[in-house]
């Protein structure tokens, strides 16, 4: 609604009243009204988003505590359009004080403010799912958690106050649980369960591909159980937390950093708050920005910050360190694909790290071809960002576009124009970064930064080249077989025709001699 600018006291009162109202809208209420932003806009998506957020959290929690993840996802129908969705892990468990914050409070998370490769980025997800459940069924959220062998498991029920964004524990009792440590959250919600494309089952399968160290179990509404075993017992190397790299920093962020730093001088601000800036470089930058190295960071004015930014932009830095990234690895990615897809050819590639706007990232790609993969359909594209499968907004995603803009004909696949290639192919692309740029809040499509697109293309092309070699070799063998069958078919016809014309021809002699001659000349 538009408020007209006016001096009339009556209308001013109106505006003040409105402002009061706006203030009283809580974050929970805001999301109640804008749930499409978070992936709860339809009953199909509600269940899959819930599971996605839950599984992401479980995997992250396990890895941070050096535990090989073991996750059970169950969707149990209660009425025709209601389900209890539960996610259970063998993670470290959650202490009582944290339970309402993690499952009940929006925008609460441990990952929002740090730069390292983690799955979720904003800490909205699982609490939004809890909120959705409560809104559609009125039922409390049930959490069981145990933090160690020597402590009893506790069972909680939570209620969320949507006006104040305050969760409340309504029940807390000790309970028996078979696990020594771990967490199980169960949310009853309205929803719909489906199979096929963009389904929960597909999500779990893809998650298994990208997380070969995790054991995943899915129990579907009809009771059928799908298990994904590990391809390795090795946890991925832990991603390190890093300071921002000076390349690609933006003015707003720079000003916030200047305000928030505990450094007392500009020089130490530069060396401690950024990676890859030493004291010598820091001094040079200050000089170029016309600022004193021992100026107080909090006193830097906006136009001075602007100069500082220019100086940063004009300086060349060493590329950011890459130990903050945790790729799956060529070997594991290939093994993991072999486990989940029945194909004849596999190839995986992990590129070296690269940088977009100061954020290091790494692209991995893999291809599976042939076998029982579907022959007459477009390639199956599996997209991952930090090991999380992306299932929606396929065509808006930089990964999809990089694949369709690659010329697959030269690698022996069919392709019309700039579409996805056709054939029995699965193409997997994984982008890992301390900050994956998405095109929107629902985090389903990777943004089109030229540096990223370039790496994506190089990765799939590298896989494509090997596929091309493989297919050419196959083609040759097929040709050979075809030629052999040609001999079998047509050599006797020649003898037969000669006999028709001349009579008295020994057809067997002709066939024997001709076959002999032709086979000899092929070698």
């Amino acid at each position, binding site marked *: 609604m538009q408020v007209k600018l006016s001096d009339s006291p009556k209308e001013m009162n109106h505006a003040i009243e409105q402002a009061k109202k706006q203030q009283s809208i809580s974050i929970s209420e805001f999301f109640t009204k804008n749930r499409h932003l978070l992936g709860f806009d339809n009953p199909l998506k509600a269940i899959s988003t819930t599971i996605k957020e839950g599984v992401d959290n479980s995997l992250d929690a396990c890895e941070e505590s050096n535990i090989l993840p073991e996750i059970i996802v169950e969707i149990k129908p209660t009425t025709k359009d209601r389900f209890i969705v539960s996610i259970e892990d063998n993670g470290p468990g959650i202490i009582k004080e944290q339970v309402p914050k993690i499952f009940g409070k929006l925008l609460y998370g441990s990952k929002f403010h740090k730069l390292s490769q983690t799955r979720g980025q904003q800490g909205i997800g699982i609490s939004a799912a809890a909120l959705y459940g409560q809104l559609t069924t009125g039922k409390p959220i049930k959490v069981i958690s145990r933090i160690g062998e020597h402590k009893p498991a506790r069972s909680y029920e939570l209620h969320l106050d949507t006006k104040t964004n305050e969760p409340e524990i309504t029940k807390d009792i000790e309970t028996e649980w078979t696990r020594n440590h771990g967490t199980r959250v169960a949310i009853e919600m309205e929803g719909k369960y489906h199979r096929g494309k963009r389904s929960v089952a597909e999500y779990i399968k893809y998650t298994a591909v990208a997380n070969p160290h995790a054991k995943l179990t899915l129990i579907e509404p009809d009771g059928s159980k799908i298990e994904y075993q590990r391809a390795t017992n090795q946890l991925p190397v832990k991603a390190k937390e890093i300071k921002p790299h000076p390349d690609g920093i933006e003015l707003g962020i720079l000003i916030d950093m200047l305000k928030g730093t505990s450094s007392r001088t500009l020089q130490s601000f530069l060396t401690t708050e950024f990676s890859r800036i030493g004291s010598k470089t820091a001094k040079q930058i200050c000089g170029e920005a016309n600022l004193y190295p021992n100026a107080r960071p909090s006193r830097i004015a906006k136009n001075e910050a602007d100069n500082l930014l220019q100086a940063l932009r004009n300086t060349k830095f060493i590329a950011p360190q890459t130990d903050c990234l945790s790729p799956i690895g060529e070997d594991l990615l290939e093994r993991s694909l072999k486990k989940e897809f029945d194909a004849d050819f596999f190839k995986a590639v992990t590129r070296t790290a690269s940088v977009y706007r100061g954020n290091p990232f790494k692209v991995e790609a893999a291809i599976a071809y042939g076998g029982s993969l579907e022959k007459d359909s477009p390639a199956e594209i599996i997209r991952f960002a930090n090991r999380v499968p992306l299932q929606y907004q396929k065509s808006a995603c930089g990964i999809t576009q990089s694949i369709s803009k690659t010329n697959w004909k030269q690698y022996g696949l069919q392709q019309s124009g700039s579409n996805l290639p056709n054939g029995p192919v699965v193409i997997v692309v994984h982008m890992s970064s301390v900050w994956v740029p998405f095109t929107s809040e629902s985090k389903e499509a990777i943004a089109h930064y030229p540096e990223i697109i370039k790496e994506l293309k190089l990765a799939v092309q590298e896989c494509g080249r090997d596929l091309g070699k493989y297919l050419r070799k196959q083609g040759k063998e097929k040709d050979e077989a075809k030629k052999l069958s040609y001999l079998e078919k047509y050599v006797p016809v020649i003898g037969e*025709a000669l006999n028709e014309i001349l009579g008295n021809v020994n057809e067997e002699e002709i066939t024997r001699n001709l076959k002999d001659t032709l086979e000899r000349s092929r070698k």
Partner: protein
Amino acid sequence: MNEVLTKIKDTATRVKETINKKKKPELTIPIRSLTNVNYDPKIGYFELKGAKKKRELTVNTIKSFAQSLKMMGLSKQIVETKDMATKREAYYVSKNWGDARFKEQRESDSVMDDVEAMFMVNREQLGFVPEEKGGDIAGQLTVIDKDQNTGEELKIDCTKFGSGAYSIPSSVEHLGFETDAKFILAIETAGMFQRLVKHNYWKTANCILISMGGVPTRACRRFIRRLADDKKLPVYVFTDGDPYGYMSIYRTLKVGSGNAAHINKFFCVPQASFLGVTPEDIQKYKLPTHPLKDVDKKKIKDIIKNDPFVKQHREWRLALEKMQKGGQRVEQQALAAHGLNFVMETYLPEKIKEVSKFLP
């Protein structure tokens, strides 16, 4: 023994002996294309230059090699029993050849053309006939044929077909002719032919009308050639004003084609000349036109550059260039824009007064 039978047996014997010497046999076939013909206006038709392709029997060629031999076998059988087979029938016979059978008639036609060229004979000599109609005749001509049962002489008066016409048979070698006509008018479209027949134009102009119905068949070409030779008649050709009418129809009638160059000698009509519709007529008679299609433009360009006939006749090159520049083509029926009978009353009489101006 029949010449064709000898050729077939000689070739088969050579193939057999080569195989039994454990060597790879070859079939030698002249290259059937415009690039492999010479044209000398004094000789009057496209002559084979002599470039040949050798089809060696290898794993890659074995299928067509086997098919060629089977086709020769079929021909031998037909010729020995004095029978004949249409091209379509030959295609169906191949259905008994197991894996060597043809999938489409196009394939069997092409193998037949190869065998024909290999022996430098006409396919009728191999016992094969096309099922296409030869063309229609009306006018001052009596064709002398034989009764198919008794062998008695039959005189067919082509003035007595009323609004219909006499059909040229697929084989014309045995026909005789009687005529007082002054010339032969060969017409591209059946529609124009009918208009002229309807108004007995042949009577007014004292001529023989022949409808070619597009590119003339071999029978039609041979018929015109024999008639023109026999009765010393000039042949005037009347087609649409487009590259198809000029080259595919007129040029093929006059000097033959690249594809069947080995038989052009018998099937050409060197005494033919081109009446119209010429690019010049478009302006002279103010005829309604259509823009040239892209394929037409491409064809003209290609003809000027590559066609040995056009290269020898400057007049044709100029005419084609004129058409290229104007960007327009014209149909025979466009003459109706000046009245339905304009073609008989004005166009043709005016044209025939100046035969010397016809395109060669």
